[in-house]
């Protein structure tokens, strides 16, 4: 910047003494005059482009990730607040269009670990993500294909003892709902009374007992009620009113999420499908985001995964979300919106996981001008205490702004299941109708780890 000293534009036919500042970058050979570029401060489109370029260079040149994040979110303007847990109708379609995500029903393909070990397969880590044989195509109901083959002898050391894990889960459930004498739940706070503590107990005991099989869990960090934030731009709009009326601005979004629990690990989860795969279409919605309804507010642009950049556990493993009382199933059934029940789970999964994976990618130095070079994978379980839905998200691209999305063929992918009950009812110290499928899926999630481990 200092190199561009005072100079004057050449008018054809006139010669002016050019004042070259010593130390200026040498112009390309054959031209005696410094490069002609747009102004920085003028009110013109070229000047705006130049300002954007300078901003991008500044962020690229930032020394540390904290500095990059600070510059990225420095300018505050009104932005849409995207809530992962929302009652808006068909919110998951909108969220998919904001985050350029493809939704694939069912769980990603991988080897069924509960198949009885065949001959040589004895001690192979069967939870490694080898592509499944084509006979079991990844269809929705077959997703937890592991559950089809009933656990034969659960005593083998190669895979976990489902009976023992089941008893742990039942103990946690019974303690929270039956054995411990608690006062009545506060008004509209049913979720904090029983399902919340149950989920905490469940995850902590399961993670502890499975840490022997998964060394990644043994090095993990468990956060209770963490904060996850992400800020991004997507699309363009014209400013409607105010002193900036008429200018073209990017549409800004911010997700501020509070999962109930999350597990962070020091090593990244392996990719599910290659970076450039195309598994479906991203919905295109022609309306403004405010029609969802989504509202704008201006406040700090935060990007946060749950702990600061200095933490060694900077990659995400699994999040657990608890749906609040406002979004319980009975309420939707009463208002005859049964199809929206699944939408709630899906929108929560997509939005939370997008925010988490994108924030993880930003912690590694990627942003929308420097797109990710490897996919970031994380998992989530969304539950209301009884019904569990599982999601797996692969972030392939961060480039969602209007300029960068033009030539970007990559899409983010989210695999998700429908919600299934873990048990039917708890009566008299017994859990009735326990569903092993859900437990198995949970165990797979917790046992997920990179191939080297």
């Amino acid at each position, binding site marked *: 910047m200092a190199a561009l000293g005072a100079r004057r534009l050449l008018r054809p036919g006139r010669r002016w003494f050019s004042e070259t500042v010593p130390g200026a970058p040498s112009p390309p050979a054959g031209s005696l005059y410094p490069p002609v570029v747009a102004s920085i401060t003028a009110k013109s489109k070229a000047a705006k482009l130049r300002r954007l370029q300078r901003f991008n260079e500044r962020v690229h040149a930032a020394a540390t990730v904290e500095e990059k994040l600070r510059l990225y979110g420095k300018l505050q303007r009104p932005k849409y607040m995207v809530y992962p847990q929302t009652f808006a109708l068909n919110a998951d379609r909108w969220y998919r269009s904001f985050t350029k995500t493809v939704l694939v029903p069912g769980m990603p393909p991988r080897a069924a670990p509960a198949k009885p070990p065949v001959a040589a397969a004895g001690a192979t880590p069967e939870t490694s993500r080898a592509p499944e044989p084509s006979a079991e195509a990844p269809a929705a109901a077959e997703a937890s294909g592991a559950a089809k083959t009933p656990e034969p002898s659960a005593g083998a050391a190669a895979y976990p003892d489902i009976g023992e894990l089941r008893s742990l889960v039942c103990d946690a459930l019974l303690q929270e709902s039956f054995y411990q004498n608690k006062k009545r739940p506060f008004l509209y706070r049913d979720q904090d009374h029983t399902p919340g503590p149950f989920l905490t107990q469940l995850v902590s005991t399961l993670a502890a*007992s499975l840490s022997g099989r998964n060394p990644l869990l043994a090095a993990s960090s468990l956060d209770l009620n963490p904060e996850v934030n992400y800020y991004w731009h997507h699309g363009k709009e014209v400013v409607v009113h105010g002193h900036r009326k008429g200018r073209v601005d990017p549409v800004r979004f911010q997700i501020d999420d509070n999962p109930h629990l999350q597990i962070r690990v020091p090593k990244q989860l392996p990719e599910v499908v290659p970076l450039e795969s195309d598994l479906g279409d991203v919905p295109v919605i022609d309306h403004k985001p405010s029609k969802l309804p989504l509202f704008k507010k201006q406040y700090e642009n935060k990007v946060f995964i749950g702990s*600061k950049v200095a933490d060694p556990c900077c990659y995400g493993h699994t999040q657990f979300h608890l749906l609040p009382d406002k979004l319980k199933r009975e309420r939707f059934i009463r208002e005859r919106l049964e199809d929206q029940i699944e939408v709630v789970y899906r929108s929560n999964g997509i939005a939370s996981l997008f925010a988490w994976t994108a924030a993880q990618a930003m912690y590694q130095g990627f942003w929308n001008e420097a797109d990710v070079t490897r996919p970031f994978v994380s998992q989530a379980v969304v539950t209301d205490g009884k019904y569990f839905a599982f999601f797996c998200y692969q972030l392939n691209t961060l480039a969602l702004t209007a300029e960068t999305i033009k030539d970007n063929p990559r899409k983010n992918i989210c695999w998700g299941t429908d919600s299934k009950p873990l048990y039917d009812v708890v009566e008299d110290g017994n859990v009735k109708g326990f569903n092993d499928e859900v437990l198995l899926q949970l165990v797979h999630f917790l046992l997920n780890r990179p191939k080297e481990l």
Partner: protein
Amino acid sequence: VFPGVRQAQWLTKTKLVEGLPPAVQSIVDNPALGLQELEERAKHMVSHARLWDTAEVAPRRERYCPMLFENLIHICRLMSAKYPSLSKRMLARNCRIAATWERESILLQVRGLSGILMNSMTPIAPVASKEEILATKEHVLETFYPIAPTIDLQEVKVYKELNDTGQCFRDGYPYSQPHTLFFLESANVRTDRFRPEQLRAKMLMFAFGNALAKARALHGNDPKVLEQPVVVQSIGTDGQLFQFMVFQLNTTDLVSNDGVKNLVWIDSDQNLYERAQCVPEVKKRVVTKPAGISGFQPDTFKKFLALYLHGTV
């Protein structure tokens, strides 16, 4: 008025022993546990709770005290990979405890939310040998003449003598043995927090209450010397200072002042780290205190882990 532990000792008919009991100390010194690698993780956990947990500059005590506790318990729970019987433990939050007893014709009662309780299926074996228990007969309880021992206690009319930890859990609960009580002093304002001495007294009273309720549930309500003493541990912290306590209930005969006494081992004021600096302190352009955790004491964490593992190792 004067140190709370001495008063609590009189009220619960207890003899105090400084330091941790030899059984727990042997777990600390046991090299087979691999406590060295855990030091690194413990340091990370302290940094996480004190420095990295929040998007603001520094987390407040209400946030970092429970977070530190959860992190340390997480590391301890992960040890269940090596010791599978550790999975037979369950944490219960917000337990209400109620226990009543008579002490030289004064009726005393312990009631209230007793912090976080960890239950296990199997009881902890008695820590003191029979000779030590009998030796407490000679010990004379310190009296505070002319101050009445019930000074600073709230006098309340009791209409129902409530008596069990069964108040907290129903019958048939599989994790029936109280193992450890955790007390977190996490109020932001210093005057809302208990001072270390008062915290120790509170720990003693609640551990006694839990042990008494358990003993009465097991052996009935008659006051007598217990064949199988009941052991309850207790850990209290304010995020930096840790107080460790092991309480052994030898007798429920609390009316008289002589006879066998109960025993308590207290290891007090253990610092886990000296200082946690979120932002480096700079005086006259020179960094005097760099950011990070300084003065980390692995021994305190080892004691925490040893108390957790006690009973299964």
